[in-house]
């Protein structure tokens, strides 16, 4: 069997979809900004993938074609996501309730690797002083924690 080297555009597409998958598996962490750990992860993943995708093809033609391929893949994925709830759920997950009426969702917290301090940090950000003032805390699909205060607080 003689399979020639995969074309550079295909390599770019493999790389894109593989990174989308890895980032989805690594999971979301709360916070508006990237933490230093996430910076390392993003740049390291990008750098490692880059060497295999570009290989020894350093031409501008190759760069243009690979960038267009990645842009096309991203555009297509976004288009499919907006049309299909199922695909959107697979790509982004669903919002998850972390705290509801003075009760922690312990399994969700553990599986999503979120500490109660993460929730409290976000609550303080909204001017809440104690956990009792929180009606619902939700881990959003983008990794943000939304805090809904109790009506009377």
């Amino acid at each position, binding site marked *: 069997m003689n399979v*020639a080297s995969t074309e550079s555009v295909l390599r770019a597409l493999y790389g894109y979809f593989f990174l989308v998958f890895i980032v989805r598996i690594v999971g979301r962490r709360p916070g508006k900004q990237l933490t230093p750990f996430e910076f390392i992860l993003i740049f390291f993943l990008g750098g490692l993938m880059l060497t295999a995708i570009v290989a020894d093809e350093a031409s501008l033609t190759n760069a243009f074609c690979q960038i267009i391929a990645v842009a096309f893949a991203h555009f297509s994925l976004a288009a499919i996501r907006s049309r299909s709830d199922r695909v959107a759920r697979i790509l982004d*997950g669903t*919002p998850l309730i972390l705290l509801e009426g003075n009760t922690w969702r312990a399994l969700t917290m553990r599986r999503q690797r979120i500490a109660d301090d993460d929730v409290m940090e976000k609550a303080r950000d909204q001017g809440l002083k104690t956990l009792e003032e929180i009606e619902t805390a939700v881990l959003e699909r983008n990794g943000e924690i939304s805090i809904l205060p109790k009506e009377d607080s």
Partner: protein
Amino acid sequence: MDTQAELKPVGDNVPKVDGTIAVGEDLEFQRRWWKFEKVVWSFFVLLLIADLAGALGRGPLANAKRETADGTLQVKYERIQRENTSSIMTLLPGQAAVHDGKLQLFVSDSILKEFGAQRIIPQPETSVVGAGGVTYTFPATSTPMTVQFELKPSFIGLHPFTIGVPGDEPVQAKAFVLP
């Protein structure tokens, strides 16, 4: 030109909590996803162990050795190689392979093409093309002798190769090139 904007009534299709907050949580899906994550992480761990062991090339499991029955030639190579990644194939001919101060070695075309031979150490004195390969001649004295081929494969898949001393039984083997 149609200037009418496309309109759609506002509707809420996500479940509500206490009838007030639209969260859209799908715990059933999330439970399935956590199970899937577990399977994927287990697979990743196995993959890393396989990589460290050399099952994906560049490690102990990838190293292979073949020898002719009469011991004229021994070939050390990597049975699992990686595309565009250098590996060394070492040929260890016995004294019986040397005739009149010359060592002749035949390598099949696949070593040059599929396995992308980059360099031969030492440089052969002559090279003759034919019979589905190349026959190299090296000046030689006595054993131990070592001839090395630096390989850099650019074709993915399973490729056979043949290496031998002309007139003797050759070493035939296969190596797999990973992307």
